[in-house]
């Protein structure tokens, strides 16, 4: 009984906390997790004798990070120029992918014929390894930023498509009946009922999409590029600079967390009723 009451009390105290939760990123527990991670890294390198060409020493990685961060933003050695290049491609790609995903997902949810027409191809397209279709992408979008943006868009498109489709279909029929009884147009029903209703799931798709857009830009750079974080990694690999690879990976990881934070922040602004709705 005591246990149960405790669980119940903690369940109660969970609710008021939720509006805050979504925006906070620097929670202490995450930092503790980081500390554990770094400590086990150090332990792995030193105790398990993992050779540094597999898992470099933390200090070497810190040095590598420092060499790329503690320079002028315009330095060719810095991470800033490649980051900017990768991020700007990823941002454009993400915008296109998310936009297309939302539009096509909405059309699929609204019109069954479109679902039948598009859905199989969306799945077929996503099943193709980007590396293998790179030549085609390069032909269509050029060797420059175009193909990076295209791959970024292609990767971020899919989760938004699936989640917006699923979310838009999962509206309570009563709400649709309400709009129908008001002779609302399809667009009105979509805008006023379906879209807000699907918002949490569209945001979940967006959450994945930003990460995949970043990944898409990097993957595209691996297929051949002049600049970008993918180039930084490839170049470090070419001289077996494992610490350099790790430094770049850490930057990408942090970037992923930051992008996730931005999406959650936007979600908290938009889905304001979701955090504390009760009835």
């Amino acid at each position: 009984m005591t246990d149960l009451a405790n669980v119940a009390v903690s369940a109660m105290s969970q609710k008021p906390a939720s509006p805050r939760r979504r925006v906070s990123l620097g929670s202490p527990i995450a930092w503790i997790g980081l500390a554990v991670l770094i400590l086990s890294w150090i332990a792995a390198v030193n105790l398990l004798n993992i050779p540094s060409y597999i898992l470099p020493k933390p200090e070497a990685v810190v040095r590598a990070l420092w060499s790329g961060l503690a320079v002028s933003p315009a330095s060719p050695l810095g991470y800033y120029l490649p980051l900017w290049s990768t991020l700007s491609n990823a941002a454009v790609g993400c915008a296109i992918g998310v936009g297309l995903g939302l539009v096509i997902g909405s059309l699929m949810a609204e019109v069954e014929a479109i679902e039948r027409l598009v859905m199989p191809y969306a799945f077929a397209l996503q099943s193709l390894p980007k590396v293998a279709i790179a030549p085609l992408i390069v032909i269509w979008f050029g060797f420059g930023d175009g193909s990076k943006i295209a791959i970024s868009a292609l990767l971020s498109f899919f989760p938004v498509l699936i989640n917006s489709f699923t979310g838009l279909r999962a509206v309570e029929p009563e709400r649709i009946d309400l709009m129908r009884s008001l002779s609302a147009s399809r667009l009105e029903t979509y805008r006023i009922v379906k879209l807000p209703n699907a918002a949490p799931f569209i945001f979940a798709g967006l959450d994945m999409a930003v990460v995949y857009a970043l990944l898409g830009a990097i993957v595209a750079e691996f297929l051949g590029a002049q600049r970008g974080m993918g180039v930084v990694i490839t170049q470090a690999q070419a001289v077996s600079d494992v610490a350099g690879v790790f430094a770049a990976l850490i930057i990408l990881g942090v970037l992923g967390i930051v992008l996730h934070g931005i999406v959650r922040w936007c979600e908290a602004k938009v889905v304001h009723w979701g955090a504390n709705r009760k009835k």
Partner: protein
Amino acid sequence: MLMMDVDNAPRRATAAPDGVLIAIDQLSKTYVSASGAAVHALSRISLDIKPGEFVCVVGPSGCGKSTLLRLLAGLDGYSDGRLLLDGEKVEGPSRKVGVVFQAANLLPWMTVRDNVGLPLRVGGKHAPAGDRIDRLLAVTGLADFGDKYPYELSGGMQQRAGICRALARDPEILLMDEPFGALDALTRERLNLELQRIWQENRKTILLITHSISEAIFLADRVIVMSARPGRILADLHVPIPRPRTFDDIVLHPDYARLAKEVRGLLNAQEHGHD
């Protein structure tokens, strides 16, 4: 859920019988349940409603009242029979009709005021509402709650907001599914009076489902008594009590007791068949 059979005959082919707004003719509705079994919700219902009439429907729970209302609202297809609204076959929701659903059905992402004003923002052009929304909120005791979100309202307050929403557009025909069920007696009486006032002022056509026999007699020109499933019409009783009616007067009217007893008797008979 069988499809209604949509024929391509011209719309005005079946002219409205003189002075009939809603013509229900041998209307049936059969649901196919998840297990594949057929549930006969309505069986060959026939009923004509004239413009400006106030009709109340009573009947045991599960007898098909909500189903009838959904068919009239054009929200579901019927299985058999004919259903004309203003002489036109009902094939979907019409702008002329406002609906109060059995559940309040407010949108959680909008404030109460936005929920109530929703009918004025969708479904084509509408006459400007002026302070209509505010007046509705005031009448239903929600004046202070316009800027709150639905989850901040009590169950009864949500139901009242739902009623405001249905009245917002001032529709020609008002279909109401137990609108006052979740309200306390006094609020209920006040809203009954308000509804009577609205109806007398601009003579809407109202079909109201209720479980309260006294409410039905107080409000209605005609009380329709339905049988247990499959829903059929047991009686169509005229209420000859003059308007405006008040709750204090009506109980004294000789017809009141007679009608109440008759309705109660009909429902009671049902009840026994049902058990």
